[in-house]
């Protein structure tokens, strides 16, 4: 169900131009909706209803269809992400090595649930489906940094690095 996001949309003219240009260039290709959403998320970082509306208009598709595709795939987020994005791998290899404890530890320390963003916009927390670093399980990613063979005790130290 659609929920009004807590953080208002702050898109710029330049961002809109970039998206419109992409849509104009690829409008007639088959299967263009998915690449358009991927491009839009690359530009804006997430897909608020305002951006979905732009895509619907640009591709001449009903907004319901755009929303349907945007909510189907886990890559797309309708909510803004934190300044630092944390994702904990909950793939099988990490799970059997205790990744759930890492997730709980982060939720407790950040005071948010998986899928949410801290009120100060500093961290967002997500689960990942296997980033393929099974040799280092359990693993978490903070932005592009990989932390492997993690224990709960290390979490405070890691978070402190990004609180800056």
């Amino acid at each position: 169900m659609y929920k009004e996001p807590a953080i208002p949309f702050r898109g710029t003219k330049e961002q809109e131009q970039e998206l419109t240009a992409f849509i104009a260039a690829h409008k007639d290709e088959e299967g263009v909706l998915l690449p358009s959403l991927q491009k839009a998320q690359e530009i804006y970082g997430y897909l608020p209803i305002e951006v979905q509306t732009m895509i619907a208009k640009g591709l001449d598709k009903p907004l319901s269809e755009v929303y349907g595709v945007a909510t189907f795939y886990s890559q797309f987020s309708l909510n803004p992400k934190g300044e630092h994005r944390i994702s904990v791998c909950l793939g099988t290899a990490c799970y059997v090595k205790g990744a759930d404890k890492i997730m709980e530890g982060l939720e407790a320390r950040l005071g948010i649930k998986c899928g949410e963003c801290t009120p100060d916009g500093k961290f967002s927390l997500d689960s990942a489906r296997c980033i393929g670093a099974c040799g280092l399980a359990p693993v978490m990613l903070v932005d592009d940094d990989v932390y492997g063979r993690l224990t709960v005790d290390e979490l405070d130290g890691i978070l402190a690095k990004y609180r800056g």
Partner: protein
Amino acid sequence: MLTIQELNEIKKKKEKLVAVRHHRNDNTPNESGYKYQVLVCGGTGCTSSGCKGVVAALRSEIAKHHLENDVRIVTTGCFGLCALGPIMIVYPEGCFYSAVKAETIPEIVEEHLIKGNPVKHLLYQQTVCDDGSIKSLDETDFYKKQLRVALRNCGVIDPEDIEEYIATGGYQALAKVLTEMTPDDVVQTLLDSGLRGRGGGGFPTGRKWAFAKASVSDQKYVCCNADEGDPGAFMDRSILEGDPHSVLEAMAIAGYTIGANQGYIYVRAEYPVAVQRLMIAIDQAEKLGVLGDNIFGTDFSFRIELRLGAGAFVCGEETALMTSIEGHRGEPRPRPPFPAVKGLFGQPTILNNVETYANIPQIITRGADWFASMGTETSKGTKVFALGGKITNVGLVEIPMGTTLREIVEEIGGGVPNGKKFKAAQTGGPSGGCIPAEHIDVPIDYENLIALGSMMGSGGLIVMDEDNCMVDIAKFFLEFTVDESCGKCTPCRIGTKRLYELIDKITSGKGEMEDIDKIKELCAYMKSTSLCALGQTASNPVVSTMRYFMDEYIAHVQDKTCPAGVCKELTSFEIIPEKCKGCTLCARNCPVNAISGKVKEPHVIDKEKCIKCGMCMNNCKFGAIVKK
């Protein structure tokens, strides 16, 4: 346009450069033109453990000593032994350095690359014999029983250089097919080889191609399924990262066979390295002329486009994948019509998985008999497995079909760490099942795994030990399928959810014996009535754990205990007063202040307050806290 003669010239020019990388401490002369070649694994596993820093350190040391003309640094795909990353091999000796740190690079450059003395204490210790001599990597437990066919170029060539692929015989199969074989010959060769789909189902590849070839249409498509969604599996990613051209070449062969001029690779956006290497590979192949118009001067033209998956497990199902390429919600379609008749954009289409494609060029060049000589009666060739979980040598292995699970776990995998006991291995991910210790000696092939209630799957192999609760594992996979069910058909959308709730009830200690019957009934309905394989197989982890570990389910339901001590609601922590020294460490670490006691006196846990996080047990230095 590239001619076959020009292709052979490139091969000849680069052959010696690459040949040396097959040296294993033998005395074959090094004619590569370099004194040393240093191969550093640039796969995702080693990238995560810091191989970029290693490469940077190597470059700066080599520049410092002016060795640019003597030493060649090559970033390759996965060597397989991800647990020991970053990995580096120095040729011509074939010295295998494991867990390399940037700080140790100056020593390696100084001692090995300048003075010629391998730095033994930094080598993978299994390759250093008691008498100080260095043995070949192929003789180590991890590699000894492996046979690399699909992975043959991974960890050998630079995946970003098409000429290195050509040097190992790349694009020869395509040349042969276009100039010497009819489409029917190709189909017959695949049928004779016995190759079956490596993505899970195991359908004979030759038959699939024959169907698509028989369909009449002006436009046909060749698709590659690189949407490796099974959590804990990274076979396809490693092939794409280590040897992308093998997939492109096979797709072009498929295009020629069925009469298609367009291919699509549907690859997970979560695999940035693989996506990048594929883009480079397609670009190089087009520039050279092995993809594009009139390949090798024939009238065959073929192009390949990438489509990025957006994170939906169901898109691994063939019809869902095509729906997704068409730009819609990735929901499956009923079959028939099968994709070979009506697939992508309504046209005849073949879809194969990455590993299947990676086998094909070699089947063409080395012959169907060669391929069929490996494996078992019904399953030919090799299979790549991503070994993970409670196993020493986590990584990527390729074994001939018919190898036993015991060989994989105990020999190649190095056994279960920390002296724990092997309990079961899960294959086939959320669609598969577990193989318990009592069946560890069964040879692995398609039929045997199905008879055991599991399946080959795409190749994830997760090892579990005595500390894993099988009911909890079943719940883990169900949670995944609940999340990933696309919602199109009722048995899957609602069935997975209800099944999850029943299992959750059991792991929370509220289960009743009749729930077990309900679960069995629901599993059977989901299997027989779901639209696609996701729903049809979603119950497999439950059915399979019930088949082998019913005692654990009953313990959860009747005795309200979790034998492995995993399910929180069914476990409790206690302090053994005789062992407790009263150091207060547990009380200080308890996040909910559930532990009380005076200094130097035995402490007590308040079970009402305890949240069972285990912090006390982890911190106790005297082993005085036990989980029951």
